[in-house]
């Protein structure tokens, strides 16, 4: 997948959403694709220093918590670190951060901050675009 560009929008903040985003992103990057993720609205929780350590299961799906433990899936904190090691661009949405009154230092180190145009510029020639 060298020369393949993947653009992902993460707009939701449950544990399910986080795995969808980070599993596909890291698998793509490990396959040599260029990957960028735009975190907006509740998706910002996925890269929030504290929130991403304890993301909620979707309402009514709390019983899956045990399954996550048994399947030995990596934590979201761990996956976010792996994503960065693999060179994935993590872009926080400036507008959402303003609305929620959050500063860049509330998020994990190494993220970029940008607006809708930043993501569009990145995604305009993407081969794969995913939205979660």
């Amino acid at each position, binding site marked *: 997948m*060298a020369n393949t560009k993947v653009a992902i929008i993460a707009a939701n903040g449950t544990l399910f959403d986080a795995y969808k985003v980070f599993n596909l992103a890291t*698998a793509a990057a490990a*396959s*040599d694709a260029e990957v960028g993720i735009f975190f907006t609205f509740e998706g910002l929780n996925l890269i929030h220093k504290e929130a991403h350590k304890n993301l909620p299961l979707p309402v009514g799906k709390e019983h899956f918590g045990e399954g996550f433990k048994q399947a030995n*899936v*990596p934590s979201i904190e761990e996956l976010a670190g792996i994503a960065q090691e*693999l060179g994935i661009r993590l872009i926080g949405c400036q507008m959402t951060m303003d609305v929620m009154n959050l500063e860049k230092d509330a998020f994990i180190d190494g993220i970029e901050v940008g607006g809708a145009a930043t993501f569009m510029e990145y995604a305009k020639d993407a081969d794969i675009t995913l939205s979660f």
Partner: protein
Amino acid sequence: MSITVNETLDARGLACPMPIVKTKKAITNLQPGQVIEVQATDKGSAADIKAWASSTGHQYLGTIEKENVLKHYIRKATDEETKVETKHEEIINLEELRSKINGDESIIILDVRESAEFTFGHIDGAVNIPLGELDQRFSEIDKDKEINVICRTGNRSDLAAQKLTEKGFKNVKNVLPGMSKWEGPTEKVIKNY
């Protein structure tokens, strides 16, 4: 008995996408042409490792399942495979080789691929001496017979054929293109593992 590999990665107990992510990291440290064994218990890894190899250009050799552990074998990509220029003059194509195998003359088929590649499919009766071990193992080869050297695409066998000729072997042929295009019957030896 085990398959000779350059690196073994223990990804047992890990869920998707970790086997892939760990394999990606581990293969970075290998030399082109070297072989890695990835041990995993994630059942999805069987399809994933194969797909990953195909998207990254590495060569997926095969998978052995033993005691609920999947052992995947991958050979790191090398540009040698894309070159088609060979130097050894005596060459033979696959069709000619097949008729020789079915003929009366006793010939040697010397397969110089890595042992893991050999394990997952080779011509019945072929002898495996990986190119990297050839210098130490000339004495195992009968000088009086015709030696047909084969690899995957004809490049390693070309180098091996040159080495054998330098060592005084007279009747050495490079089989072109190689196992990648071989359509005859193949043997596997995985039952031994």
